[in-house]
């Protein structure tokens, strides 16, 4: 019977233990001590004969990040000359940071070819200096340490100065037209088909003895579309009060309910019929989108309104509401600034206020100097945009095709003006 091979195993283990204790362990301890010393002092690790020595990064610069809240420092450097795509010895970089001349701490490890880092974990009022270690497979070479940098807070972002100037120009135009309207000068706004139909739609409901349903979208009072819808509501409610017709307004937001009640109440008072107003004209349903839709659909088929206004911010419920209104034979006037919902209103409603027409209608109907001035001021912005597009497309096309320098210069200026960095 052959002898079992495991009988000699204890002697092998003893030899391995001795080898580890007397040769490998002291080497590891010494190597760790060397690495620690290099990190603290920022001096190159003394390599032994088997270590792969790599050159450090150069031109390391730490600078405060411009135009921020004092929470970032930018680092940039020239990668090690050993950092090559083919046969490169560099396997990455380690970025070390010293806070107020304290102990260095590694903050990130980067891939080869990296030449910068954005440190977003700094605080105002502290000084930071950095060094970057270049890593080979078994050694690292630290760079020189940067001068201390303190992150600074800036109040103005001068990179967006052009945006500020354009905003001031448009704001100035709005203020100018508001003041012009306040002085009593009539500002021209072209006719909008949907608005022209309001009188007819309310008249029809009065003749048929059926109510008018007003849906102000499903967003709250902080949405400008809801505000525009309520402005139009003011005019609609005034006509309803004059014609002694009925209005019903189910809403999905409590604030819209109170604002809607105030608007209708004011309209009835202005029409000299405050007694005809009651709070039940505006009812809160639920904040839940499709719960609201289910209820409004039910109201439509039970009350059978002659006219439905769908004005404000709508989402997936737009087609459901518009189709139900259409199925009960109501005249529907819709308007929203949400491009994804406009196709459904155009398909299922009689008149649709497309995008900005909703706000224009609001200004047109109210005639308020603020709204009219704002609308005219926005037209100034549109005129500037049209001119920029026309001039820009012509100059860039001709300038590039025939290499006309002055046209290329105009394109460059326009690009700078409308740059968002």
């Amino acid at each position, binding site marked *: 019977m052959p002898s079992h091979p495991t009988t000699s195993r204890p002697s092998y283990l003893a030899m391995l233990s001795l080898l580890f204790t007397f040769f490998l362990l002291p080497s590891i301890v010494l190597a760790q001590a060397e690495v620690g010393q290099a990190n603290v002092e920022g001096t190159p690790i003394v390599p032994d004969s088997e270590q792969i020595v790599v050159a450090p990064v150069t031109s390391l610069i730490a600078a405060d990040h411009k135009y921020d809240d004092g929470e970032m420092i930018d680092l940039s450097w020239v990668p090690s000359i050993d950092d090559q795509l083919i046969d490169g010895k560099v396997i990455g970089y380690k970025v070390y940071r010293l806070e107020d001349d304290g102990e260095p701490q590694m903050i990130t490890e980067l891939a080869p070819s990296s030449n910068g880092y954005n440190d977003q974990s700094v605080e105002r009022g502290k000084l930071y200096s950095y060094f970057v270690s270049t890593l080979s497979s078994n050694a690292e070479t630290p760079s020189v340490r940067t001068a201390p940098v303190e992150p600074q807070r800036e109040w103005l972002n001068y990179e967006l100065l052009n945006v500020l100037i354009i*905003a001031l120009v448009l704001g100035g135009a709005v203020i100018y037209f508001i003041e012009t309207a306040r002085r009593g000068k009539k500002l021209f706004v072209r*006719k909008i088909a949907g608005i022209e139909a309001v009188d007819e739609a309310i008249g029809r409901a009065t003749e048929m003895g059926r109510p008018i349903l007003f849906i102000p979208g499903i967003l709250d009072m902080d949405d400008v579309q809801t505000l525009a819808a309520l402005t139009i509501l003011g005019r609609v409610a005034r006509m309803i009060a004059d014609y002694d017709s009925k209005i019903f307004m189910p809403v999905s937001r409590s604030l819209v309910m109170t604002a809607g009640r105030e608007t209708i109440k004011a309209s009835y008072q202005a029409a000299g019929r405050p007694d005809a107003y009651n709070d039940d004209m505006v009812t809160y349903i639920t904040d839940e989108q499709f719960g609201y839709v289910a209820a409004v659909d039910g109201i439509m088929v039970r009350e059978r309104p002659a006219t439905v206004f769908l004005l404000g911010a709508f989402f997936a419920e737009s087609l459901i509401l518009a189709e139900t209104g259409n199925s009960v034979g109501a005249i529907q006037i819709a308007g929203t600034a949400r491009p994804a919902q406009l196709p459904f209103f155009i398909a299922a409603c009689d008149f649709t206020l497309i995008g900005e027409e909703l706000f224009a209608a609001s200004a047109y109907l109210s005639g308020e100097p603020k709204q009219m001035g704002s609308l005219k001021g926005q037209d100034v912005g549109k005129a500037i945009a049209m001119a*920029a*597009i026309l001039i820009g497309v012509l100059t*860039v096309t001709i300038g590039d095709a025939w290499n006309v320098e002055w046209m290329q210069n105009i394109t460059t200026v326009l690009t700078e003006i409308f740059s968002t960095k």
Partner: protein
Amino acid sequence: MEHFALWLGGFLTLGIFSFLYKDNPWYKLTEAIYVGISAGYFVVVYFWDNFYSKFWVGVFPHKRLNEAGELIAGVEPDYWLIVGGVLGLLMLMRLLPKVGWISRWPLAFIVGATAGLWLINYFASFVMVQIQNTVTPLFGMDYSASLYVIVGNIVVAVGTFTGLVYFFFSKEHKGAFGSAARVGIFFLMITFGASFGYTVMSRMSLLIGRIDFLFGDWLGMIK
């Protein structure tokens, strides 16, 4: 219990679908359940998500201690939230008719702050970037663009320009200006047509999801 929930879900789904035939008591029941539950649900959600999680925990943070019994950094009270709390309180003044007008202040703050915060973002992304992207050489650099790209560039430039003409309210749509506006609305309608088809497709997937619930989860006919 799971079976009961499935049957209830199937019953309510069919109740909503029954509206496609006509208004009926089943739909009315489902509608009332949906509206009632969702209204109550949102009261609870708003209370815990806004009042408790944002305001209360922000002003009176839970004390989180480490093993040494020291307060963990980052849980200091945020007293700025009290400003929001006061504005919220002012909003409730609507309930008191005599001082109801005060509720307009927080409303004005919300509208003004929202407009100010979004102004630059909207302006930069919807106006400036749009202009920048429109200003491109129609035929490419040195006439290098393919026919496909040239047509695309022309459509973008003409569509954007005429679209702006349509939304210009200070001039009557007559003459050349009116013609440009008509081209603009032509572009808009093509866009809406494409958007309509795309959205209908996505709605179909919602319907398929519901049918999958009915015939799969509920009736077990789809494995």
